[in-house]
């Protein structure tokens, strides 16, 4: 079974498609794949502590915290957080701060990669 690195770059409060991408992450993890969801650029806005639990326009989509609880490794780009003044200590439960090099690690290990 393939493992995945899914890279989300969009703000879920701007793009309803983000919910679909998170559903994909959740579905792959439920089927037994190792899934890392890497948040970069405006996607890190959804990782803020206090961000709405349920993403807009995605009624069936789990929150980032729920995704993490269900086996998706949710990572937030440290540089994107810093750019936006988001403290790494003020993130949703289950979200881990990571450098962008984590994406290269996953690519080098052969995970299937998708960018949204």
């Amino acid at each position, binding site marked *: 079974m393939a493992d995945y690195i899914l890279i989300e770059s969009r703000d879920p409060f701007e793009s309803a498609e983000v919910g679909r991408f998170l559903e994909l992450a959740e579905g792959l993890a439920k089927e037994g794949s190792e899934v890392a969801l890497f948040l*970069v650029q405006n996607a890190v806005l959804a990782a803020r502590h206090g961000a709405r639990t349920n993403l807009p326009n995605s009624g069936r989509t789990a929150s980032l915290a729920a995704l993490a609880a269900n086996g998706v490794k949710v990572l937030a780009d440290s540089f994107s957080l810093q750019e936006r003044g988001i403290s790494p200590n003020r993130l949703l439960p289950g979200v881990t701060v990571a450098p962008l*090099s984590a994406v290269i690690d996953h690519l080098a290990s052969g995970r299937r*990669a998708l960018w949204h």
Partner: protein
Amino acid sequence: MLGKKTLTFMLMDAPFENARTTTALRLIDIAARRGYDVNVFAYEGAVYLPLAAQAKHANAVHGTDAAEEDHPLPREWVAAVMEEAARNGGKLDWVNCGLCVDERGASESIPGVRRGSPADFWKMASASDNVLVIPTK
């Protein structure tokens, strides 16, 4: 993670427009620093990234001249990641889509950029450990 890897990236965004370009070049830079071989296939507006004619400019609002403004240029970033790859024992093969270049009149690129076709992307992808396509929105 051990051993030399070959990664291929497809870029599609024109420069000066989207954070995807910065993130893409950050990723390429990380791979180059590791000494990986990196292939880049620049498609659509991304063929402007290594355009040799990009120039720094003054900023009247800031009251600065071109040197003071020190405006960052993507062609310099592309050259820098090429140099970084070579410095670390890797290589960066940058291919601009020829049809995209012709459509846009973007044929004057910095040294090290070659012209190709989507078939080159297929060859690069086939010979790589992994591929990341960074599409436009």
